[in-house]
């Protein structure tokens, strides 16, 4: 076994840990991959982003499959907004080629901090009432229902401010294509605060959209040569394993306690990325 084989095995196990932590804090298995590969392994941020975007497709598709089957995902809302996220992702991947690596570090740090903030104070746990469908929502019949395990019945909900949500989704798509993350936090933010979807539906639908968003930019990174097989393969396989274990653990443990443990870690990682960008570290 030579150096490069060891390198692959090290990345594989580190990616398991990153995928596990990412899924436990609820930000998705791929969120820590770029910091891991750049800070711990010293890799070029472009190659880190290329490997990360591929792993995002893998983890999100697995989770999305489960949510869709459980009828939590609003497929119509997801498909409509994928229009915005996929175009945004192509834009982001295209623009990334012209940005300095330092700018990417700064952006990554900033987005990671922004993603951590809402999870500190969990927003919108309750199903929003007093929401009426806007014109587009009525036209596209976006209002739907989801099963409520506690009562055993179904909860119906409306969807509002589709244009605003659509605009926010475009930005989420750009961020995803630019930084190689799923940008699930931004997607949930758009559906939760603008379109007033129930939190469970927002999370599930966000997951549904992440795979398509990531696939839109992954091809660009792939042919560009930024998806290096000896890096991307152990990352994708490791994150997949980590996220699967994380999902199993989440059922058993209290979500909030897990978050309290790992959120400071994420905040530290975000600051580190930011400082690298401005050239302090």
């Amino acid at each position, binding site marked *: 076994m030579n150096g490069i084989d060891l390198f692959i095995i090290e990345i594989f196990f580190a990616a398991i840990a990153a995928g596990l932590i990412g899924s436990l804090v609820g930000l998705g298995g791929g969120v820590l991959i770029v910091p891991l590969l750049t800070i711990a392994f010293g890799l070029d941020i472009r190659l880190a982003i290329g490997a990360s975007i591929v792993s995002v497709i893998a983890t999100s598709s697995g989770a999305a499959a489960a949510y869709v089957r459980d009828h939590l995902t609003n497929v119509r809302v997801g*498909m409509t907004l994928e229009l915005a996220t996929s175009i945004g992702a192509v834009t982001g991947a295209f623009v990334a080629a012209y940005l300095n690596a330092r700018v990417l570090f700064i952006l990554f740090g900033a987005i990671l901090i922004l993603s951590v903030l809402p999870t500190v104070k969990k927003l919108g746990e309750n199903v929003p009432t007093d929401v009426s469908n806007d014109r587009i929502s009525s036209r596209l019949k976006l209002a739907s229902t989801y099963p409520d395990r506690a009562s055993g019945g179904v909860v119906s909900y409306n969807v509002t401010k589709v244009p605003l949500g659509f605009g926010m989704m475009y930005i989420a798509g750009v961020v995803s294509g630019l930084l190689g993350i799923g940008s699930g936090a931004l997607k949930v933010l758009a559906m939760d605060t603008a379109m007033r979807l129930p939190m469970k539906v927002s999370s599930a639908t966000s997951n549904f959209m992440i795979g398509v968003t990531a*696939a839109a930019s992954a091809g660009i990174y792939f042919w560009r040569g930024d998806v290096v*097989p000896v*890096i991307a393969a152990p990352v994708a396989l490791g994150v997949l394993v980590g996220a699967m274990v994380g999902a199993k653990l989440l059922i058993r443990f209290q979500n909030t306690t897990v978050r309290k443990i790992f959120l400071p870690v994420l905040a530290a990682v975000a600051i580190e990325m930011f400082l690298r960008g401005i050239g302090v570290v």
Partner: protein
Amino acid sequence: MSMQKSPTTRESVEEDQPVSTAMEIQPGPHPMEIYISYVLRIGVLIAAAIISIGTALFVAGIGSSTGNPKTINDVLGSGGHSIPVSPSSIFHGIASGNSIAIIQLGVLALILTPMTRVAMTAVLFMIQGERIFVAITTVVFLVLVIGLVGVGS
């Protein structure tokens, strides 16, 4: 909400049995969700299997290694751009049993998984006569195709 024909309270919906037959009244595209779920699951499984095989062959040193990186510096030294990627390089690589090309095929399978899901959703919306959604889904598919053929490369 009152203007919608939304299925407000159907208490009898059994969430543990997705293939329920009592779904005809439910306007939600229930069979569609089952198909989507399968496509995503199977796509990721296939891709992960191909990537695993390629990685295992690489680490074990089996198969042709023409152009493969031998050291970490081969990967990092040139910024990772030492191995040009093109459909023909992948095709020829696989034909000669190159482990790196096999991993690249697996990555392509992963990218194709959400694309397949979108294409299938378009067909299902077509069957249901949902014209607007056929249009939306088709545009999303076209954007993915543009992304895959590589605008920036």
